């Protein structure tokens, strides 16, 4: 799948772009250009028994730094497959994926693990926290895999939990937390390694509408602080909080539009709480 790297446009030198695990990505690294993600003709084919399922049929996309992208589409449109490839959890069948000047397609399993650890924060629909493990330990988990010292690990994890407003509950277990709180632990875990990008696959799918907006408020706040966010959702009102809408259909991008005036989650919350007050009266 990485046989024709040289065909990638924009003159990226794939040799220098290729990274090996263990190499240090310093925050001071000067970006070659402002493209965080460059995707060209991405294809993904599954074999389901004898049938070939074409989940992605040639997706090309550039995402700039500090963007907030919502990916939408019906189920089976390929958006989740696309997300898994973005998150280096899955490999494309064809095409190239360049993340932060690194040609991800040519990396080994260990190198991909390194990318997932350092560059990507993943937030799942089902939270995917380790059960019977405290919130703090869940957030610390990514730091276990890059030899962070015990002291720094705890400091960074508490910082991340503060960012999502859970500093009061760091020693709670997932089953002692509400869905929204669990998702915030998952977001803290995604943030703890200062990733280049946060990927969220239906992060509000298991949450009620108010909690969903609370989670979106956190994403908006993080985006304002300069973190690039890509989220998959099938709820149009959730997508309204993002700055760019990409719609998938049948494994291809159907539309790619900027949302000039995204909704403010903080304001939406105010409206909801005033409605709550009225109901109570």
């Amino acid at each position, binding site marked *: 799948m990485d046989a024709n790297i040289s065909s990638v446009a924009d003159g990226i030198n794939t040799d220098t772009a290729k990274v090996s695990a263990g190499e240090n990505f310093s925050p001071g690294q000067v970006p070659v250009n402002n493209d965080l993600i460059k995707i060209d003709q991405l294809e993904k084919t599954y074999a389901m028994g004898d049938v070939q399922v074409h989940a992605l049929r040639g997706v090309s996309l550039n995402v700039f730094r500090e963007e907030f992208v919502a990916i939408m589409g019906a189920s089976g449109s390929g958006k989740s497959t696309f997300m898994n490839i973005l998150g280096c*959890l*899955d490999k494309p069948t064809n095409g190239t994926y360049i993340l932060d000047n690194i040609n991800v397609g040519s990396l080994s*399993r*260990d190198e991909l*693990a390194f990318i997932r650890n350092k560059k990507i924060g993943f937030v799942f629909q089902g939270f*995917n926290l*380790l059960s019977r493990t405290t919130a703090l330990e869940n957030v610390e*988990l*990514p730091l276990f*895999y890059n030899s962070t010292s015990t002291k720094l690990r705890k400091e960074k994890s508490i910082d991340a939990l503060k960012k999502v407003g859970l500093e009061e509950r760091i020693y709670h277990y997932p089953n002692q937390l509400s869905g929204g709180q669990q998702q915030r632990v998952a977001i803290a875990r995604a943030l703890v390694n200062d990733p280049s990008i946060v990927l969220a696959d239906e992060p509000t799918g298991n949450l009620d509408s108010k909690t969903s907006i609370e989670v979106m408020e956190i994403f908006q706040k993080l985006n304002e602080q300069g973190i690039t966010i890509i989220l998959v959702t099938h709820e149009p009102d959730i997508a309204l909080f993002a700055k760019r809408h990409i719609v998938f259909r049948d494994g291809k991008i159907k539309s790619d539009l900027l949302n000039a005036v995204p909704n403010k989650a903080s304001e939406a919350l105010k409206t909801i709480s005033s409605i709550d007050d009225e109901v109570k009266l």
Partner: protein
Amino acid sequence: MKGLNILLAAFRALQRNKLRSFLTMLGIIIGVGAVITMLAIGQGAEYSVKEQIASLGTNVLIIFPGSQQQGGLKVGAGSMTTLTQEDALAIQAECPQVAFVSPDTRANGQVIAGNLNWATGIEGVGTDYLQIRVWDIQSGNFFTDQDVKAAAKVCVLGTTVSNNLFPDSDPVGQTIRITNVPVKVTGVLAAKGQNAMGQDQDDIILAPYTTVLDRLSRFPYLREIIVSATSANDIELAQKQITDLLRMRHKIVGLNDDDFTIRNQSDLASAATSTSQILTILLASIASVSLLVGGIGIMNIMLVSVTERTREIGIRMSVGARGKDILTQFLIEALVLSLIGGITGIIFGVAGSKIISGLAGWPTFITAFSIILSFGFSILVGLFFGFYPARKASMLNPIDALRYE
């Protein structure tokens, strides 16, 4: 992930399923415990076999006078009259690897007590004779050094002789006549039964060798000198010391033949020892089978654990765990299981062998070797059987692991 963290994570993972972890460990506990107990029993058996052989007299050396040669004709061992009482005393004094020495001479005769009589052998021996033969006095006393010096007319009876001459009364203190010499009975020997050749060892009378030499046989040379080495291992050395001493005393130089012969029973001892060693190996191999089964138990549980925790593996991989991190994690878990199981097994094995030796009265010996062997083996079992499930876990595709329901 660093060492201590991995270890802590492994402990926590095992803690989450205490009963299952315990049952898994049980295989190793039983295995290690069985190996230690079986080795202890085996080595105890080896020890008691050695003891029994020692009681037969494996550290015993018998010195015969050499054969007489007349022209080209050798008359046979014991026909020469070269061993003297002084030789016996010299061996006692000058051979450090010799523990006990008893001169030995023999007379045969008709023994009369009251209206009963019995034909038997009269063995003239020293006071050390009972120690050498590992023989006890059943009643009364053995004769003393004083009796030997004075060639006193005293004797002790073997049980067969005692039963024939004194069927209803206590022989101690009675007087018997041995070929018309009146001799006082000072004690009765414990029954020893038949020897390896089927001879009745209890059909004997023991008397001071001086008494036999002077009053019964009137033959001034010793039939043999019986000697015990300080231990079974010292037999060779004792034999050499005695040979050197006697050659010197008998003025035999250069390549001339010895005028005496020394015999020992070490062949019997080594055969019996190797038999009991085979027994130990057999017991240990049977016990190792249970250790192997315990290892398969670990593999089984680790495989279940990998399947059950596929999602956890997926989560760990999605935040950056490499295959080898997952491999290490599961391998350490298997290792911790077998390690704790091994330690507990050692405790149970030691306790088990104590209980068995207490209840059955068998001697058991726990050696450092058996502990190191079984413990090391349990760790190897953990590594070996933990590796396959751990590797299976590490080879998972992150997305497949995450999607696993």
